[in-house]
C-alpha cells in the first residue's frame, strides 16, 4: 500500500480528533511535570491544521505535510510547535515529488523528521521527549518492507508507556529531575496519538 493524498488528509483529521478528545488528559499530564499547556496547545494547532487542510485542495502528500508544518509552527505556542512543525516540514521535503508515498519513502521521511527534531530540541532518545516514541517507530519501519498497522500501533503504544519510568533530561520536566519519574511524557503521548491515527488510516486503506 502507498499513502495517497486522501490517506494523509485522514491521518491529520484522525490525529486532531484524538487530540481534541484527550485535550484535558494531555494538559493534566503536562501539569504534573511541565507547564500544563500541552493539550491546549496541540488542540489549537491541530484544529488550525485541519481547518487549513480541509479548506484546500491537494495533489501531493508533500504539500499537505508542508501546510500542517507551517500551521503548527505558527499556532501551537509551546515547544511542540517548532518540534512537530519541523518534523512535518522534514517529512514534506522527504516525500516531495511523489504523487503517493511508498513505505520506503515514508520511512525516510520519519528518519528526516527525527533528525529535524534532534537538531531543533537538542535531545536524544531516552531524554523523556517525543523522540522516545518516534525513534522506536522508525526502527520498526526500517525492519519492515510494507506498512503494518498493528505493529505501528503497538510499537508506538509501548514506547509511549515506557516513558513513565524515565527521568527527564530535556524539556521543562528536566528541571524536576527525579520528580519527573513516574509520569508519562506528554509529548510522547501526543506522538502516540499521531501514529495510532496513522495505523487506523492504514487499516481502513487495506
Amino acid at each position, binding site marked *: 500500500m502507498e499513502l495517497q493524498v486522501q490517506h494523509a488528509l485522514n491521518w491529520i483529521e484522525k490525529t486532531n480528533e484524538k487530540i481534541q478528545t484527550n485535550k484535558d488528559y494531555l494538559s493534566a499530564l503536562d501539569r504534573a511535570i511541565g*507547564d500544563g*499547556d500541552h493539550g491546549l*496547545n496541540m488542540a489549537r494547532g491541530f484544529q488550525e491544521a485541519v481547518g487549513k487542510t480541509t479548506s484546500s485542495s491537494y495533489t501531493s502528500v508533500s504539500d499537505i505535510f508542508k501546510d500542517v508544518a507551517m500551521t503548527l*509552527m*505558527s*499556532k*501551537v*505556542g*509551546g*515547544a*511542540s*510547535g*517548532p*518540534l512537530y*512543525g*519541523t518534523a512535518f516540514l522534514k517529512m514534506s521535503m522527504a516525500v516531495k515529488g511523489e504523487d503517493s508515498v511508498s513505505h520506503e519513502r515514508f520511512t525516510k521521511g520519519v528518519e528526516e523528521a527525527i533528525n529535524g527534531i534532534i537538531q*531543533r*530540541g537538542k535531545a536524544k532518545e531516552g531524554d523523556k521527549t517525543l523522540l522516545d516514541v518516534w525513534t522506536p517507530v522508525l526502527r520498526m519501519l526500517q525492519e519492515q518492507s510494507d506498512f503494518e498497522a498493528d505493529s505501528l500501533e503497538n510499537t508506538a503504544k509501548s514506547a509511549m508507556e515506557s516513558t513513565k519510568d524515565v527521568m527527564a533530561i530535556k*524539556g*521543562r520536566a528536566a528541571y524536576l529531575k527525579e520528580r519527573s519519574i513516574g509520569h508519562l511524557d506528554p509529548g510522547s503521548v501526543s506522538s502516540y496519538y499521531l501514529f495510532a491515527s496513522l495505523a487506523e488510516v492504514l487499516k481502513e486503506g487495506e
Partner: protein
Amino acid sequence: MSHVGIVLISHSSKVVEGIKDIIRQVVHDVPVEVAGGTDDNDIGTSVEKVQGAIERAYSEKGVLLFFDLGSARMNAEVAIELSEYDNIKIADVPLLEGSYVGAVESGMGKSLEEVLESAKSVLNPNH
C-alpha cells in the same frame, strides 16, 4: 551610524516589555524589538512575532536575538531559518543581563560578533 538590532523573545510579553524599559533608560539609538507571548498573547512564543521583531530591528549590522526558555529558542532558530538574512545570531545567555549588556555595546557602534561576545561575558562577571 547604524546599530546591531536587539530582539527580546519571552514566553511573556510583560517580561520583554519590562526589559525593554530597563534598556531604554540608558540606550536610545539601538533598535530594541520584542516578541513576547503567543499570537493570542497567552504564555508561549510565536515564530511570527519573532519574524516581525527581526524585520523591525534589522539594520545592515545585523540582529542579535535573546530568549528565555524552551520554545523561545526553537522559534528563534525557525525564524532565522525562514529569514533571508545571514547576519542574525542567537545569544545563549541570560535574557535580562545579556540583552542589557548587548544593547549598551551595540550603542557604541560595535559589530554583531563584538556585541555577542560582550553579552556572553555576563556569564563570567570577573572578565
